[in-house]
């Protein structure tokens, strides 16, 4: 390409304490006008590298050069001032401020008197968002809009700052396909203007659709940088996970076989016309022992809401709920736990992990709740359980004493899974269990799910990634607008069939 080097990182190392080496002699370079994918499994060090670059973490060793000048940002603010701006996976904006302010805060247009010019800000924000095909009332506070819109606003903010380098850290995980397309067209536009874009994602399709080059990290080390067009997908995957792709595929195929072999047992959950005011209505759902039931639908179709009702977070306000043939009324999640239900919520960070507790304590949590506060689980017992699941689920950690916040996303998810498995549930509900997780761990978790079902557990599997549901589930119930829209089973299951129900709501 012969373009100018924009950013060069050499010999970057960073460790947290003595035990965790996050980055070990990593290099990365970015040219003007390119979209460069930064890929790797969880724990590969992508996030840490981004944090070092944006000044959130300080590097232990190494050099960063921007436009030939050595830089050493100590805060996000400093990074922004030298021209590095970032959009994070979780929306990092202020929900209480207006959309316009969220875009312009810190660099708002001024009136002649020196005060903030709200009219100009509103006008500019509107114009900027129109480039993104977003027509919003920018004077409304941000929390009036969906997460997807908020993410677009964050991207608009970042791209509008006079940035030379734009970092997009998993920006697409909460966006729909149409929105992703929109984002890509904007990324291309920015690239053509000479901006260098670092794109961190787990979606390989997106990598091949939009990026020019790829840099792969593994276990905190630099693996290599490749032209996207020259790197076959299979090879990329094997570079990322460090094992042969064929092996991985084999594991999944085995899973598929087991899935076929699994027999459906007695009905465990039976929802009859269940409603909860303000969310789901007239939901009919049966889950049998030993089956993985997929719950599919677009964002806001009532997938998570159904799980919330089943777990007693939201109460049943109409219809009947039977668990194991017995009519029940769940007042509280504890009621559900005592009936051997388990629920891994969608939002791992806010609803799942207790960041400052150790892995052991995080695992013991649900079991303790089930037993009641007065039957304390001894430390020894907790240790035994923790060690057992660390081994079973292959959680990557030096010990069970490690604080959970120090683990990568995929391993955190496994800890949560372990927490619920420790209660020995009869129904396991998983809401987006693999979001933001690399393919290697993803496949592992999928396999665990299938294994569990074959041992007789009922599993409710909620995922917005269709191919994942197709792989794991024998039966998929499709929801639409808070109601059941249809169901596909066995050999009928295909992407097309599910999508047709999602789109048309036709009972087939």
């Amino acid at each position, binding site marked *: 390409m012969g373009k100018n080097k924009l950013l060069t990182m050499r010999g970057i190392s960073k460790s947290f304490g003595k035990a965790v080496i996050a980055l070990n002699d990593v290099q990365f370079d970015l040219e003007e006008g390119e979209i460069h994918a930064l890929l790797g499994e969880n724990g590969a060090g992508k996030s840490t590298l981004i944090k070092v670059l944006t000044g959130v973490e300080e590097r232990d060793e190494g050099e960063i050069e921007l436009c030939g000048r050595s830089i050493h940002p100590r805060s996000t603010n400093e990074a922004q001032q030298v021209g590095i701006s970032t959009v994070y996976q979780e929306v990092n904006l202020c929900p209480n401020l207006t959309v316009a302010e969220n875009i312009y805060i810190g660099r708002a247009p001024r009136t002649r008197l020196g*005060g903030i010019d709200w009219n100009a800000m509103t006008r500019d924000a509107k114009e900027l968002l129109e480039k993104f095909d977003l027509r919003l009332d920018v004077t409304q506070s941000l929390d*009036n809009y969906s997460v997807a819109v908020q993410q677009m606003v964050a991207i608009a*903010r970042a791209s509008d700052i006079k940035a030379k380098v734009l970092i997009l850290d998993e920006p697409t995980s909460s966006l729909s396909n149409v929105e992703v397309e929109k984002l890509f067209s904007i990324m291309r536009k920015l690239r053509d203007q000479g901006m260098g874009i670092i794109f961190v994602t787990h979606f390989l399709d997106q990598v091949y659709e939009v990026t020019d080059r790829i840099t792969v990290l593994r276990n905190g080390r630099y693996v290599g940088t490749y032209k996207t067009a020259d790197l076959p997908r299979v090879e990329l995957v094997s570079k990322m996970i460090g094992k042969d792709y064929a092996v991985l595929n084999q594991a999944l195929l085995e899973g598929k076989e087991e899935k076929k072999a699994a027999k459906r047992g007695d009905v465990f959950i039976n929802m009859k016309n269940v409603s909860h005011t303000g969310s789901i209505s007239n939901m009919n759902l049966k889950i049998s022992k030993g089956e993985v039931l997929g719950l599919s639908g677009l964002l806001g179709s009532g997938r998570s809401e159904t799980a919330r009702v089943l777990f007693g977070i939201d109460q049943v306000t109409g219809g009947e709920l039977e668990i194991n043939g017995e009519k029940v009324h769940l007042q509280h999640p504890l009621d559900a736990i005592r009936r051997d239900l388990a629920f891994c919520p969608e939002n791992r960070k806010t609803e799942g992990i207790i960041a400052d507790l150790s892995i052991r304590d995080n695992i013991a949590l649900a079991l303790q709740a089930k037993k009641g506060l007065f039957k304390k689980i001894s430390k020894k017992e907790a240790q035994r359980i923790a060690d057992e699941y660390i081994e079973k689920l292959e959680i990557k950690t030096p010990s069970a004493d490690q604080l959970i916040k120090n683990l990568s996303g995929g391993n955190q998810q496994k800890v949560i899974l372990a927490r619920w498995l420790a209660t020995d549930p009869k129904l396991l509900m998983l809401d987006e269990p693999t979001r933001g997780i690399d393919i290697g761990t993803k496949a592992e978790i999928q396999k665990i799910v299938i294994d569990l079902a074959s041992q007789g557990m009922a599993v409710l599997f909620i995922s917005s990634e269709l191919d994942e549901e197709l792989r794991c589930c024998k039966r998929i119930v499709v929801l639409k607008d808070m109601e059941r829209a249809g169901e596909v089973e066995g050999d009928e299951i295909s992407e097309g069939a599910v999508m047709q129900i999602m789109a048309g709501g036709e009972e087939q």
Partner: protein
Amino acid sequence: MKDMKKIRIKNISLTMTVVLFAVMFIFGSARYDHFLSLSTFLNLFNDNAYLMIAGIGITFVLITGGIDISISSTIAFTGVFMAYCLERGVPSFVVIPTALIIGIIVGAVQGSLIHYFKLQPFIVTLAGQFLMRGLCVVISEASIPITDPFFKFMALGRIPIKLGESKALNGKIYYYVLIFVVVLVAALFILKKTAFGRAVYAIGGSEQSAELMGLNVARCKIGAYIISSFCASLAGVVFSFYTLAGYGLQNMGMELDAISSAVIGGTLLTGGVGSVFGTAVGAMIQGIIQTIVTYENLNTWWTKVTIAGLLCFFIVMQRIIAVRAEALKGKTAAAA
């Protein structure tokens, strides 16, 4: 139609506060002779200027999601410190700026401790409260009268306001009320029109986001505590004009009056939402309750009882509004 609804929800707390004030004023006017007059209204400012100033200051801290319970002690300290210095012949043009600077220092220290050591604002300002209150009594256990001519001038100087011939249309405001007016206007400008003010809201919304958006969180947070303590000192100065004395046990628990003014005026203790105008009206509501209690010839503690009820009402209302807004948002998200 839907937009209308949203706008209403956003401003409903403030609207409710203003309406409540009007209702109370009308209630008083209907019930008592001589209540309905300009002077009743203006006296609310005369008697509560110091509370309003302190309330405006603390609103900054509350919007960031923090709390400052040191302000009443700072007010008392300012009074005692000034009275003590004036008694020893230090001129007022030295004493007043010094007192204000002490306020700024107290705020800067508290803010820095809270920000850099990540300490709980409650504990840090509790320590500040003990310190300032303790120092008051160390300086003087007894009340010290102030005889300085400038203070007397400010205490007694007033502007007559005449809207008509009848007695009800006559009133007066003391000079020190003008200080409140200046503080209010300045605070409104800062919060709405300056980068600092907007960052105060941003921090209240999400401190982490504010940091990641490149805002100078340290400066803003410490700045908010400085403003709070500075306003407390200023309120102390105004209070000295009002009472012409400095007494160490004065204004015990007044920080809670200031906080309740802010809450009644629509400020959320969780941060991110609030207005200084609302706080001023909130303080006036407390003033009018006091006035009504006086007219009714009740024990003045009935004021507290009434405010307790009001506070409960307001926080429950805020919660309901928040929950309903959440539901509304859910619906629009589903529709989108």
